[in-house]
């Protein structure tokens, strides 16, 4: 059965449209004036103004490797992060730690550790899965480069971003 939808009855002022037009113009003008008098600010002038200071603790930026208080790489090359990484951004080439090394009993370390930042989706899975708390998502977000090669972070770069983390870190941070 057809339903007859009642059209609203418009008053004469509404039908001749001009009052509504004036109202609309007033609203847009009010917005323009508010912006011009700097009463309201919406946009951030990005490269000069940044949000860094307000960045929340759980922000997920570029993943990076860390060393511990002895300067040892925490990563033991278990490759769990490589397997879990959804877009397969991580490539690890493991190597054995030579017997004369101070940390020989750790047995394994990464020879090469690369994260392709074009592929990385900043999901944080690598951080979550890592048994050694060796990989963390930092607050760096402006990852840029002029070529694809430049966008692949190698081990050196990853340690540079990551720096040192001492002691046990609460990796099961609820927010992450």
């Amino acid at each position: 059965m057809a339903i007859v939808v009642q059209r609203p009855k418009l008053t004469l002022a509404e039908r001749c449209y001009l009052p509504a037009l004036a109202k609309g113009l007033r609203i847009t003008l009010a917005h323009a004036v508010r912006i011009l008098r700097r009463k309201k600010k919406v946009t951030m002038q990005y490269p000069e103004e940044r949000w860094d200071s307000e960045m929340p603790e759980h922000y997920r930026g570029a993943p990076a490797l860390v060393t511990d208080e002895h300067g040892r790489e925490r990563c033991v090359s278990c490759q769990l992060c490589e397997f879990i990484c959804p877009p397969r951004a991580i490539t690890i080439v493991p190597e054995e730690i030579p017997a004369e090394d101070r940390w020989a009993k750790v047995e394994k370390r990464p020879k090469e550790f690369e994260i392709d930042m074009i592929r990385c989706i900043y999901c944080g899975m690598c951080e979550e899965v890592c048994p050694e708390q060796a990989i963390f998502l930092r607050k760096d977000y402006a990852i840029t480069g002029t070529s694809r090669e430049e966008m692949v972070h190698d081990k050196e770069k990853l340690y540079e971003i990551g720096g040192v983390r001492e002691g046990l870190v609460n990796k099961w941070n609820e927010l992450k």
Partner: protein
Amino acid sequence: MELTDLIISAAKIGGLIFAVILPMVAYSVWAERRVSAIIQDRVGPNRVGVPFTKIGLAGLGQPIADGIKFLLKEDFTPGHVNKFYYWLAPALTMVPALLTCAVLPFGSELFGEKMVIADLSVGPLFIFAIASLSVYGIVLAGWASNSKYPFLGGVRSSSQMISYEIALGLSLVPVLLIFGELNLGAIVREQSENGWLLLPLWGEGAIWNGGVDRLLLLFPALIAFVVFTTSIFAETNRLPFDLPECETELVAGYHTEYSSMKFALFFLGEYAAMIIGSGLIVTLFFGGWSLPFGWDAMLMGDATEVPWWLGLIHIGTFFAKVTGFILFFIWVRWTLPRFRYDQLMKLGWIVFFELALLNVFITAGILILTRSN
């Protein structure tokens, strides 16, 4: 025609079109972007300034960068188009817009030269004749593109033009009746002496100087103004009447298949038409280049020729008024939503056509009553 006349005409054409109108077109695009931004609580293009420096100039370099970008982009011609008309169409939208400014008086006199390129005695008629050509650009673009969205845009454009051109022409008849004159320069001079059409507060137009007729005529003049301005909106294909373009329904309407500078010509043609439209509104209803309150006569004193500084002031006044109107156009664009197609046709045929026709009779009646002695 003597050589000096030719040189003077060429100088006027060069000065007006290339030094004023075209930069104005470019900068009204910038103004559009900045004004839309502040209306929508944004910032807009505020970076591009002098290249290779940190001088920002509030983004005033943007139009130049845009122009270079348009020139450098790939000019792609799809295989399925009708090449000849496809190439012709963008030019046909830009050229009429620029042609019409030939009859607009953009200043009084400078060194004894009238500041109008062609002092025709049929100014408004010339403008209508040329301006309606620009619809061919859109229709041809729609047709030649050989694809359905541009086609629909072209069809819409032609039917929109037909419904608005009538109201546009008719709404001007009362104005011409009031002035009894078709020369735009003479119309402006009359307004300079006896009050603008919508502001008759000095000279013979003022009520205390016996200008009762002008006060009565304010009412039809106001109707003519509303109808004419709205029709100009439709004529320039700007929101709320941008149905030929209408990106929510027709992708980009008639210029869907265009790229690079050809697209830019459509885009800039719209702005050029807007500037000329504003110029026409200003000339007819707001006294063109004249200063308000009879200051022209005051500044002139008893000089017979307009001094050069006053001539410059007049030119400045004209473009200041035009700029004001362009800002109004932009303001309206970012306020109103697009009309539905049947609403647009209804407005054109049922409201504006009748209103304009009625207005002619009202004006004639008032004129008979007040000026018949």
